[in-house]
């Protein structure tokens, strides 16, 4: 999930009777699966939660370009380089679709980006891990985008219209990302040297658990989920989504001829799902708090990009003014 632990500001759910007439009207609309649009009345908590979630989602897309950008100049062939650049451009696009839907809620894009740069806004924990070898590009596409797809497919049904429409657009583009990632790994496993095959296994070993952490804490440790589910911002719980992801990914893992770094991972005939071992939540919270391997580097890179680009933005404004003057003269 690209948005983790989004605060809803609610301690306890209200019953329909406790709600104001406006609130009740709103909740009944949500219950009837009528999409909420920008101009509709909405509870302040709903608006704030959405701004938090959508901005966090957008930041994740933008920061998510960095681990991949690391490999643009190192891609093994021109074909792979073009594919990688197309994927990275998509991530920028996804970030912008999301910022644009966030702005319909009255939030300011620059202000939200400033919060990210000040360390006040979160982005997905996954992007604080380094991408150390070429197989990481495959594993990121397959596992990270794969986890994002599981989450985002469900979010297409989210209750806020502009967010839901951005998700539809994103989902259409996302499956290219996952397939190109899996194909990188498949090629390495089928045609690669032993050293290259080892790289694939190494990438999976490092990214497997962080990918599972993307879905956020277990449901009983996720105090904000309940309100988000009632508002239908969130449609499935963290654990449900995680299980869906594991169930669909393990057969793909086996097809590659690789293994997961989890001795407890095995098919459970009774439940019809894969069982898996305990997740290291300490690591998850550490990364979220800013102490992951790449947190500082990521934010520094983002800040530098904004600062170094100031002159470009200034020039664009000056040029636009000049053109207008000329047209008026």
């Amino acid at each position, binding site marked *: 999930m690209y948005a983790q632990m989004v605060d809803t500001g609610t301690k306890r759910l209200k019953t329909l009777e406790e709600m104001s007439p406006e609130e009740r009207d709103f909740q009944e609309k949500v219950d009837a699966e009528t999409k909420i649009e920008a101009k509709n009345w909405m509870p302040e908590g709903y608006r704030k939660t959405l701004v938090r979630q959508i901005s966090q989602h957008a930041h994740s897309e933008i920061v998510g370009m960095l681990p991949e950008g690391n490999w643009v100049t190192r891609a093994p062939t021109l074909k792979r380089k073009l594919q990688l650049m197309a994927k990275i451009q998509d991530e920028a696009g996804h970030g912008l679709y999301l910022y644009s839907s966030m702005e319909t809620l009255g939030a300011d894009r620059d202000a939200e980006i400033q919060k990210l740069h000040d360390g006040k806004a979160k982005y997905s924990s996954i992007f604080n891990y380094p991408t150390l070898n070429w197989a990481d590009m495959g594993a990121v596409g397959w596992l990270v985008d794969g986890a994002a797809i599981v989450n985002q497919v469900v979010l297409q049904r989210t209750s806020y219209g502009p967010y839901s*429409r951005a998700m539809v*657009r994103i989902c259409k583009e996302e499956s290219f990302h996952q397939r190109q990632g899996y194909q990188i790994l498949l090629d390495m496993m089928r045609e690669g040297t032993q050293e290259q095959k080892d790289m694939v296994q190494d990438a999976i070993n490092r990214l497997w658990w962080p990918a599972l952490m993307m879905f956020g804490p277990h449901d009983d440790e996720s105090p904000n989920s309940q309100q988000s589910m009632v508002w239908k911002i969130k449609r499935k719980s963290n654990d449900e989504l995680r299980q869906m992801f594991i169930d669909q990914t393990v057969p793909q893992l086996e097809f590659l001829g690789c293994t997961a770094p989890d001795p407890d991972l095995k098919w459970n005939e009774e439940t019809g799902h894969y069982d898996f071992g305990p997740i290291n939540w300490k690591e998850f919270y550490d990364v979220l708090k800013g102490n992951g391997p790449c947190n500082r580097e990521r934010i520094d890179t983002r800040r530098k990009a904004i600062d170094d680009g100031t002159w470009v933005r200034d020039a664009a*404004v000056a040029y*636009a003014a000049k*053109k207008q003057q000329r047209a008026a003269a």
Partner: protein
Amino acid sequence: MSEWRLYEVFVRSKHGLNHKHVGSVHAADNEMAMENARELYTRRNEGVSIWVVPSETITASASDEKEILFDPSEDKVYRHASFYKLPDEVGHM
């Protein structure tokens, strides 16, 4: 960026179809809005024509005007073809 104007983007997906709202972009001027819209919303043959319109120039109906604007059309069933029942012998009309 927020210091830049906000534009709404409309894309015609195919010749013969109407333009549809797809989202928004920020830009320093109209020309840049067009370039940004092309980069952002038509990377995969999504369209054959783009409109960009400064958001502030759009006048939208407010949600609390919904009844005033749209209710009157609901009680005029005689505006629909299905209101007029014709004998079967007349055939398709």
